[in-house]
């Protein structure tokens, strides 16, 4: 009995199946023949091989044309691409982490702003009084909040405390050093455009002092020679300021806070 070999059409079809990995499309009878027939087996493999080479040439040519790389460097391009993707992911992660840290550092300053608001409503303790001062929390809650609900970012930044100057003003809260008695409150709140007198008592009449006013960025705005008082100028903008009183020996006598609204 003559063996029926595969036709060219069948060879072509099965060669495509072989490359696609879809050999299960071939009938079991044909499979049996292919398994046992060296000639048909080899023809299928030959055509599949040529197809594979043709596709490979087309892919390599398109890569060379599009990217302009040497064909022999195709594999290293793929490797570098994978490394590039991994590096991009790591870089993105680092950027996200840095941005998160920056956001986290701004939040405590806003919390400080809330602390300033509390300071305003905390009664100033008179160091000469023997009375026990009781802070009534409920009273505080009844106080009308004058700060606008929506504060522009720029305005908010003007009220952010300066850490170093805060520590300094906290240290000089007693308002008494040597023969000097500061009669002005340690924290003063005044309306913008309203003049205000900073005052202190000194044992020596005519004694000269230096007053320095800083903004909340610790920038020196005003430096003047004074005697026992100083009038805050009305042209100071809204924001938080610190003032220092220095004697002629350049000793720091006092540091207070001024809030202009």
């Amino acid at each position, binding site marked *: 009995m003559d063996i029926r070999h595969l*036709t*060219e*059409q*069948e*060879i*072509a*079809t099965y*060669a*495509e199946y*072989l490359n696609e990995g879809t*050999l*299960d499309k*071939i009938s079991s009878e044909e*499979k049996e023949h*292919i*398994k046992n027939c*060296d000639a048909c*087996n*080899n*023809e*299928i*493999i*030959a*055509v*599949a*091989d*040529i*197809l*594979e*080479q*043709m596709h*490979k*040439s087309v892919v390599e040519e398109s890569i060379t044309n599009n990217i302009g790389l040497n064909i022999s460097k195709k594999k290293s391009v793929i490797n570098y691409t*994978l490394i590039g993707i*991994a590096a991009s*992911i*790591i870089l993105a*992660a680092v950027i996200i982490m840095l941005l998160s840290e920056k956001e986290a550092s701004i939040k405590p300053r806003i919390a400080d702003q809330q602390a300033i608001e509390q300071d305003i409503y905390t009664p100033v303790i008179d160091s000469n009084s023997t009375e026990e001062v009781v802070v009534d929390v409920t009273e505080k809650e009844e106080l009308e909040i004058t700060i606008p609900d929506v504060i522009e970012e720029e305005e908010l930044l003007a009220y952010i405390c300066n850490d170093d100057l805060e520590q300094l003003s906290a240290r000089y809260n007693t308002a008494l050093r040597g023969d000097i008695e500061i009669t002005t409150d340690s924290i003063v709140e005044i309306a913008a455009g309203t003049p205000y007198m900073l005052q202190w008592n000194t044992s020596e009449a005519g004694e000269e002092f230096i007053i320095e006013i800083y903004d909340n960025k610790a920038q020196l705005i005003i430096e003047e020679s004074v005697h026992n008082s100083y009038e805050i100028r009305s042209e100071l903008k809204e924001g938080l300021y610190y003032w220092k009183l220095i004697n002629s020996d350049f000793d720091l006598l006092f540091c207070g806070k001024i809030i202009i609204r």
Partner: protein
Amino acid sequence: MTKAQFISPEQLMQYSEMVVNRFIAKRSIPFREKEDVQMYIVEKFILKQQKIESSFLGKSKVSTYCFAVLNRMCLEVIRKEIKHWNLSDEDKHPDSIAMGFNSEENAVVNDEIRNLDKVIQLFFEEAPKVKLFIALYYRLDIKESDINNYDSNYKEDNLLEVFDLNKDINKAELFDAFAYAINSVEQKRIKADAVRMWLNKIIGILIKRLNTGSRAQYDKDSFQILFEYYYLKESDKQMGLKKVMTLLMVILWILGI
């Protein structure tokens, strides 16, 4: 379908050159005969084009069908002319005409490995069994995926233990293990001797098919080397993918995802 639509003259020249180049790379056709053989098959194609076109049933691409036709024509030429050709080392394919079938060492090995893969795939449902048993026979590191391809219930059938090559066993015990595996998985009753004969026959068929139409003449030893390359290369591909996946997992862990 008109002649002009089926295949253009330029495509015919290109396809015929690719087919002939492959036989030259396999050293079935001497390089000096390249032009003659190519012209012969192109002329024959043109003469028979009407019949060729009418036999095309559209079950494959036109290009693939043309390759099959031209390939068969080339085989006929080789059968007729091989006795007249005196193939020597001087007929080795020059690199400049490679078109993918070049003679650089790695490319030749890759071509042979690709060929071997196709030959094994044409065992169809038996292909996973052939691959696995030859790998075991050559005492290569077996991949669990290959055992799974042969038997998806390999864990229940204890094949991991059966195929454990860390045990010091001789060839007879190896074929006993093969017989046990086949009887469990395929519900047969065969003995170790039958498995030995089957495996030798399969290796013989593979060697014969690799040697057909090629000047490469594999014997059992050189076939073993080729198979080891083939099996290792497949493992490398899987390792490469695993490395990329591992790298991605590490990156995601660092990000805290």
